[in-house]
């Protein structure tokens, strides 16, 4: 039962950052290029303030979008926006939290089976609109000779049938296939798209990584990681942690490199949508419903694209 505190820890961080250091000098403004915050003229009949702004959470890979949405509608810096939102805990935890009333709105990847069951059991209905597409990508060390795998090879590796890189055109070395914790968004994506079911091998105890950054470090940073194989979501790696690509590389799938274009066109096959989510019973004039509608609007789509996501 550490999941709820995982989210609450982030809230505590928010608290500490915002309230704890009252003696601190101005912190976020003036520290970078965000000093000058442009505010756009509003043409609607509703205005968001920090008081009425919905409690927003979601998947880690959607954090930049959450920041951008918040900064845009409130006319504040990204750093300030970051303090108002909580993109922590697993995707499953986030869905549970919106059901339980901990969040008003989510920007999140698809719910896991566990989350779906939790939602069903709760009797709470959620309203979800896909706003963008991301992809599951496979990564290995830059030193690895292999540049591409087929989906079938990936299935065989993660079911334990292919165990050596030489079987897929690489060096004679055992493959170290990392996995993510089962309630992570990345694992949900893997389970759905690779679809190994019961054939998915049990990972060795030291090859289950509890965080997205942890997996990247496993592949990119550690001595002996040249034989590792892992997976993450494309946006997170290429937009949030692209320094890891200095020592790791994204493998092509069936000869197709994942890019915004190939993901958008579906040419890269392992794609999945991410969503804006509210409770279905949110009132028409509730701030979360108004924000939901805006994110689903053409202007919301423009912002999704501006943040370098593949918009729906």
């Amino acid at each position, binding site marked *: 039962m550490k999941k709820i505190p*995982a989210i609450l820890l982030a809230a505590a961080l928010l608290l500490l950052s915002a309230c704890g250091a009252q003696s601190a000098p101005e912190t976020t403004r003036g520290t*970078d290029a965000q000093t000058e915050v442009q505010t756009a003229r509003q043409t609607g009949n509703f205005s968001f303030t920090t008081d009425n702004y919905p409690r927003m959470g979601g998947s880690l890979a959607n954090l930049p979008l959450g920041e951008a949405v918040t900064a*845009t509608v409130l006319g504040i810096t990204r750093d300030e926006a970051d303090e108002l939102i909580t993109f922590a805990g697993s995707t499953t935890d986030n869905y549970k939290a919106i059901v339980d009333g901990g969040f008003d709105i989510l920007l999140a990847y698809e719910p896991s089976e566990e989350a779906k069951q939790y939602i069903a059991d709760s009797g709470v209905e959620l309203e979800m609109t896909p706003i963008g597409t991301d992809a599951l990508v496979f990564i290995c060390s830059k030193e690895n000779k292999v540049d591409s795998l087929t989906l079938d090879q990936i299935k065989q590796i993660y079911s334990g049938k292919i165990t050596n890189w030489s079987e897929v055109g690489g060096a004679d070395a055992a493959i170290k296939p990392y996995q993510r914790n089962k309630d992570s968004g990345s694992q949900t994506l893997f389970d759905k798209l690779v679809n190994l079911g019961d054939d998915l091998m049990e990972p060795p105890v030291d090859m289950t990584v509890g*965080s997205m950054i*942890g997996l990247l470090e496993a592949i990119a940073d550690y001595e002996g990681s040249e034989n590792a194989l892992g997976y993450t979501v494309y946006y997170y790696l290429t937009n*949030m942690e692209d320094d890891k690509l200095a020592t790791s590389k994204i493998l092509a799938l069936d000869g197709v490199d994942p890019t915004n274009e190939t993901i958008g066109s579906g040419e890269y096959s392992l794609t999945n949508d991410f969503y804006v989510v509210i409770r279905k019973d949110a009132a028409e004039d509730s701030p979360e419903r108004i924000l939901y509608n805006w994110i689903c609007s053409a202007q919301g789509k423009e912002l999704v694209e501006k943040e370098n996501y593949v918009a729906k």
Partner: protein
Amino acid sequence: MKRIAAFFLAGILLCLCACSAPGTPQQTTESSTQPEAVTSAAAADADAEPLVFRLESLPDIGTRKQGAVKGRFFPEYRDTFEPRDDYGSIVPYIGSVFYYTSNPYPGEDEEDSYNAYTQPQYRYGLMTGDGRIVVDDVYAEVYFEEDAGPAGAYCMTLFADRGVKSLHPEDADTEEEYEWLWEHTPDEADTLLVSADGTWSIRVPYDKWYIFGETLFAVYPSGMYENKPEDNKIMVYDYHGRLQYELSGDPGNMGKPADSINVRWLTGDVLMAEYWWSAEEGRGTGKCFFRDKSGKPVLETLEEAGNCTAFGAYVIVEHAEDRYSLVDLNGRERFTSTYMHTQYLNGEDILVMEQNGEYRILDTDLRQMCEPKSFKPYLKALNGELVYGDVQYYGEGSNWYLETDKPADMTTDSEDYIDGRYVGCRSGEDDIILRDKKTGRDLVTVPYADIPKLFANGELAFFYGLYGKKTHQDYVYSIKEEKMLLEADTIACYEAGGSTYMVFCDGGNSAVLNYTTGEKIYQKVVE
């Protein structure tokens, strides 16, 4: 765990209701750009148009800083610390957490079952004060010695394995996990000391260190169970990491390794090094060596039957049962006694000794702190003052006196000095009350914790949670704002480079917050 959740929820509610700190973002759209806009849905007229948020165009909000981690000082993975002059300051962070079951094979009886609980073990790295990783998470433990030079120094145990491992708590309590942990248990005799300004570091094959005066410190092994006599080293360094001298080999010419080594220092920067050799039968042999800053002997080697105790500029030597002497640095025996006992109370050492049938309480200048007593006094601190008790029997009938012989009101079990203004009072079995001595107010009661330590110029009180129950929690209380700021599985506070840092981890999620600037310099979330 519900308690934690409740605490954080309460914190969030507090934040939402009451927090309007200077750093809180203010909406910048309250200008003439949208004078007609409704900001409260409830205020909208039911017959009016549906409420819509829309902007004329998207504003330029800039690009996002890369990474959940702010970046790295070096682009590549690092498992060794490289001293440099340009780090600014160095702060630990928690990079990963292992969970293991303390007793994976519990028996059926209640006590065994109680002891079988899941414990976290943290793995630490080092980063600059602005959040750039300098060393990856390869350390098993971190202690901060604030007196180690002008900047202080971190003393860390190296983790035996550098591979990646980060498990979710729920997956932890397995036999496999337990076995893994044992295989990777850190080698206790491998210690790294790193200056908090990052300008020097020392890696030594010993697990003990001791701050030795204002300019030197000593590192040494704690036990000699399998060592050779020549391994009996005490190495003395300055605060630039330079070896000054060492006591090495077999200084007592005993021909066998000491069973224990203990290092203390005496006023005047004199190192007192005590070696102890056990005997198979009867008494063992203790030898005590004294060295000045340059390593020169300042006092003849003392041989003792019990042990040597540092007391200010003096040494208390236990020669045999019921025979003690207090020796100065000229080797002169100042007192002999059948009873000598030192205590650290209210920030100073105090000696209780027997002389001519009376018991005297002395400070480190050997001044009597009150009139001699006809009974063996038991010392405590009350509200920042020293009290002594005639405690033949604990409980009713005990008489307590201030050092002025005025009766003292011991209404609590004990009170511990924190600084000039605050005291920590034990309440019940293990609760601690933080009391403002100036106003007499109890600021906060923290369950199952140790006496707090103050940080950030007295704005924060850090409570280290006590072990001995199934969950361990640390706490940070804001004295300034009179509210609990943080409760987590583990918290450490450090003062480095003029800032106070809070390093904490809860539920596998970790963060580093610069309290002074309010900036979160590191956050790692278990997704």
